[in-house]
């Protein structure tokens, strides 16, 4: 889903929702069973010999105990972080007593994902068998998932814009992986939670860098007890990413001036100086007029304020929904004055768009931060990666 930017603006809705979820879960936890119900349970045994550590993501963390893991999801608001926690208890073992948290039995076997950002993670962890429901086929890029929907293995739970709660209940899933953005269906989530279907909210929009966003794959791995596999895969990604960073540090001297966003109405929303979107450009060594800004989301500027710098900026990244120079021209012919327009320096993230409106940048791109970074480096400093072809980014023509 291509909503990363916009989610920022709507955090409050998420906090409200989370408070609800927390209150709801703590109210319905009273199902502690006697240890004698679990004859094979060995309290001294470490059921999770392979562990993950969260090094980049600011959105979640995992604590390991003998037969259960505690998953913490953090929501950052200014300097304050809000926490929602779940107990992930190994199947066949009792939940710890005295901890008043919602319980999810792991490994999960049936999951519903409401965000395309999860799909590639399922695929990466060879867990497509556990994926039982998705939001809408229309937005999906992965041909595997599409064919699973067509064959009926995966069900669309939000075919008409609203979450179909009854479908999910009928599916009897272990967990719903939701999205923490405003349109997330508060009421539907509350309904699910009242029916003891845990909703784990993905909030990768608040990540500050590419690796942080990619690391959410570990959350899925934790739910699937696939720590070993994820550590292997993620360390490869990290290494690839680092090699690109090394290359930049070694070679790049000059940073080209870049602008972002596009005017809508009278205002032009550009990425904030602490935003994820700008961070991607920053690590690839681009100069940015609003680099000293403190906003983690986007900032609204007047048309002329951006126009003035846009005239001389070398690059223009992610101009809204514009996908061609003709688009740009038709939206407003004044864009033709821009240096980036004249020099074909306008790029968007529509390299792997599907006809239905899906975009693989928000799907596979999430777990391929090194490719995304290579794309950006290729745009700004083509001489560093002469052989690289743009994957997720595309040059507007």
């Amino acid at each position, binding site marked *: 889903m291509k909503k990363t930017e916009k989610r920022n603006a709507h955090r409050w809705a998420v906090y409200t929702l989370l408070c609800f979820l927390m209150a709801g879960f703590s109210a319905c936890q009273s199902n502690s069973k006697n240890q004698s119900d679990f004859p094979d349970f060995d309290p001294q045994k470490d059921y999770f010999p392979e562990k993950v550590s969260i090094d980049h993501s600011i959105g979640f963390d995992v604590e390991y105990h003998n037969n259960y893991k505690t998953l913490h999801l953090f929501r950052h608001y200014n300097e304050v972080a809000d926490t929602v926690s779940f107990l992930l208890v190994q199947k066949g073992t009792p939940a710890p007593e005295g901890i008043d948290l919602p319980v999810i039995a792991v490994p999960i076997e049936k999951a519903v994902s409401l965000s395309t950002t999860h799909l590639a993670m399922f695929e990466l962890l060879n867990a497509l068998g556990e994926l039982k429901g998705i939001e809408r086929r229309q937005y999906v890029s992965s041909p595997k998932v599409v064919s699973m929907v067509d064959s009926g293995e995966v069900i669309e739970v939000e075919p008409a814009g609203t979450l179909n709660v009854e479908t999910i209940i009928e599916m009897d899933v272990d967990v719903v992986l939701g999205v923490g953005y405003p349109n997330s269906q508060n009421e539907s989530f509350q309904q699910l939670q009242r029916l003891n279907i845990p909703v784990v909210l993905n909030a990768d929009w608040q990540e500050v860098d590419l690796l942080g966003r990619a690391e959410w794959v570990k959350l899925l791995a934790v739910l699937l007890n696939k720590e070993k596999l994820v550590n292997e895969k993620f360390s490869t990604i990290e290494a690839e990413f680092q090699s690109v960073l090394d290359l930049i540090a070694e070679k790049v001297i000059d940073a080209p001036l870049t602008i972002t966003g596009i005017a809508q109405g009278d*205002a032009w929303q550009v990425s904030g100086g602490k935003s994820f979107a700008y961070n991607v450009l920053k690590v690839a060594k681009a100069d940015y007029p609003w680099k000293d800004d403190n906003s983690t989301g986007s900032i609204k500027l007047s048309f002329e304020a951006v126009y003035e710098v846009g005239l001389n900026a070398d690059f223009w990244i992610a101009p809204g929904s514009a996908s061609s120079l003709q688009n740009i021209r038709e939206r407003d012919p004044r864009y033709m004055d821009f240096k980036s327009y004249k020099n074909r320096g306008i790029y968007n993230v529509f390299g792997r768009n599907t006809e239905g409106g899906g975009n693989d940048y928000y799907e596979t791109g999430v777990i391929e931060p090194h490719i995304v970074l290579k794309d950006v480096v290729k745009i700004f400093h083509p001489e560093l990666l002469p052989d690289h072809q743009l994957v997720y980014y595309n040059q507007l023509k």
Partner: protein
Amino acid sequence: MNAITQGKRLRAKSLTLLGFTLILLFLLDIGLGSVRIPVSDVIKTLLGQQIDNSGWQGIILKIRLPRAVTAILAGAALSLGGLQMQTLFRNPLAGPSVLGITAGASLGVAAVMLAAGTVTTTFSIRELGVDGSWLIIIASTLGAALVLMLILGISFKIRDNVVMLIVGLMVANITIAVVSIWQFFSDPEQIQEYILWTFGSLGGVTNEQLGALAIIVLTGVILTFFLSKTLNALLLGEDYAQSMGLNVKWARVGIIATTSILAGAVTGFCGPIGFVGIAVPHLSRSFLNTSDHRTLVPTCALVGGILMLVCDIISQVPGSQTVLPINAITALIGSPIVIWIIVKRKNLKASF
């Protein structure tokens, strides 16, 4: 009848004063903005001379100048639309949007923005060969025209203007309902794009579009001026107007059509800008203390332009990097003015 000539002189004086105010604010609007440009450079640019900073020149000539002209055109058009509706319906709260014209334009825009995501429409729109801002303008004009045809059709059947007013409001409601159903089934980004459009925008009109807008608005202004005598007769109500030889039905058609042209065009180019259409006629009436449309039409056009320029200057938050939505500013600035006038002069009710 010395007093009559005196009134004429006052009228000429007021119009001159308003004209000067308009020019002053026009220059001020061009001079102020996020980017600080020295007055001398602004003047030089406006006089057609070259200045060292070509970026500033672009900002003045391509951004601020068309926006200021748009503000004047939009203000004048909406005010005249409101004036005509208030006189036709003899209702102080009537505005250019009462007949559902704005709602119709919104429907057209919603059709483009909210449906654009689906496969079929994306392709059919591409085949049309139009895209971007012109598409929005064409869509909103078509939407406004659609509702206008409906309203005109109904207006031939209905004699009573009060009934007509209610019918117009209901048609607007139906149109808005259709849009909201559409919104419900749309993606957040598409809804956001639509919502941004509803905030209104004066800066989206580029030089090439400005020509079209100017021609439409000026046509509307001239038509309205031609309707002055008719509007005056309607001040006494339809029965009197008819007894004085006015063909009330055709007068109504003319007035509704003119208002639609004015309001439809502005809504198409600038989005739905509220309040100005209701407030300016009242401001103008109390400014000159007259109901004579031969005076009111030019006054409304000038006052509308002035108010819109003031709102635009404020919405640009001079000296800051940001902007405020024009639609909010027109309401924030205008409403207190109207309240003040009503309380002070107590003549709103007496006007009808």
